[in-house]
């Protein structure tokens, strides 16, 4: 199977969206989510395909995709680590958490580790300020982080991520 193409499941989801709302354009943001769920990023090729299925101009999907920061436009590591560095998290050491991750993974902000497993980025408040510091990895929140917990998590991801098939992205 061509891994760059929409899966049968994604196409079905997109078809369902097409006529679900009072106005077809309302399907755009949900369509971006379908693409993101399958690929872990939202690239031009995928958008073109999705646009055909929902029968909307590609530019309208692209215009929306460029506005929303949640969707990476290029591939990222299998584990996409987003660390909140807004105020409440920063007050409990979020900046040093970022440094710690970058040092441990030996990678720069936004880059993919050579094994393809990790990308670390900083993000704004994720609505988890009472459990700071925290990070989101793919779809999951990890809260009240300590060095020990981060070490454990990274090890877990490495173990799971190098298994055949890997994690769902």
């Amino acid at each position, binding site marked *: 199977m061509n891994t760059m193409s929409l899966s049968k499941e994604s196409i079905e989801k997109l078809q369902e969206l097409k006529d*679900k*709302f*009072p*106005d*077809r*354009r*309302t*399907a*755009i*943001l*949900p369509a*971006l*989510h379908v693409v993101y769920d399958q690929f872990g990023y939202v690239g031009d090729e995928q958008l073109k395909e999705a646009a055909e299925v929902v029968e*909307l101009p590609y530019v*309208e999907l692209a*215009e*929306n995709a460029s*506005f*929303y*920061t*949640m*969707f990476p436009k290029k591939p990222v590591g299998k584990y996409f680590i987003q660390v909140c*560095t*807004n*105020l*409440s998290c*920063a*007050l*409990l*050491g*979020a*900046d*040093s*958490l970022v440094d*710690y991750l970058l040092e441990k993974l030996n990678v720069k902000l936004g880059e993919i580790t050579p094994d393809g497993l990790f990308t670390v980025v900083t*993000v*704004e*408040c*994720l*609505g*988890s*300020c*009472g*459990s*700071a*510091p925290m990070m*989101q990895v793919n*779809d*999951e*929140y990890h809260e009240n*982080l*300590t*060095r020990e917990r981060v070490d454990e998590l990274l090890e877990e991801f490495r173990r799971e991520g190098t298994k055949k098939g890997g994690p769902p992205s």
Partner: protein
Amino acid sequence: MPEKILFKYIDEPGQDTIKVYMKNGGYTALPKVLKEYTPDQVTDIVKESGLRGRGGAGFPAGVKWSFVPKDSPKPKYLLINADESEPGTFKDRQLLERDPHQLIEGSIIAAYAVQAHTGFIYIRGEFGYGAKQLLRALSEAEEKNFLGKNILGSGYDLTIHLHRGGGAYICGEETALMESIEGRRGLSRVRPPYPAIVGLYGCPTVINNVETLSNVPHIINKGAEWFASMGTRKSTGTKIFSLSGQVKRPGNYELPMGISLRELIYEYGGGIFEDRELKAVIPGGSSTPILTPDKLDVKLDFESVVEAGSMLGSAGVIVMDETTCMVNVAWRLTRFYQHESCGKCTPCREGTYWMLKILERIENGKGESGDVELLLDICNYIEGYTVCPLGDAAVPAVRSTIEHFQEEYDYHIRNKTCMVKGKPVFK
């Protein structure tokens, strides 16, 4: 412990399922409404309760509903604002993850009151777990015919869609949220016209916050008077305070409106992290001016916080201790607003960008004399001159830190380093 309304069952396992929700008295308000009340009567009850919007502005919910024209031939819409992205605020997430049916029941009642047949829950994109919880809860409610066609034989129809955002703070602003659902970039609209007249798809629309709507079933069940007996005269009911930052026990606390800031931080929050000294508090999310410790006795209700020089906003209370550099706080929050500005109007787009540049250079030891005055000047040119309130929201972080801690700015500029020693570290 004061009476809890919204959080009464929040820690009970299974409260997120329809079975446990109903065992605990859920979905009794909805049949009552459909059988006994006209839409206008529902609106009147909510008006009498004094319930005010919990999304930041504190506008009376029942009054908002009554603005929807009754004679309009156009369809009406209800929007449920679950975009929660104001830094320091994390209450809606807990409500929708742990007690989604409370929100759904309140939303159905609100939709009935304004006679909307379609609703959208706009949930912030990052809340993946919350979205799953709501999707499941919505289908449970459909199975029981609390949603869908001819609800409980009343002849009233309602569909609620779950719509996931894409990580843009501005889409929590009501008109940007509508643009976003309409499949356009989230740029705020100029008002008037107001959403109650021209909202989603150009139709009359009501938009309310998650916490606001979650209160509605309880008001129906126990009455407007009961609700109004809690809190203060003008700020009725309870409020969920999101307590975060350098405090021993951060978390969400549901307390009567009008509780003092001191009680919240010291009794419920257990006091300051590592027993340090308190330096400043943001009482209502990152958009509200900081308060200094001499204001600890302020009552947390809409009116009193304004009197003390700030705003209750979304009630995200951020606690900062003596080790916090106020220039750094201003820089960090300005970075946020600059990043989230939708770019539609110049004062906000350029103003936040310019302020960020100045704060960055002060932070990096390259500040110049006159920078503080320049920052205040830019604040004056943003506030009141923007299309939506995001521009105004970017001002307090800068202006209020200068107002209370100008010596830290001056020190930074003169000595090219921070006046406060030690940075927070995670261990």
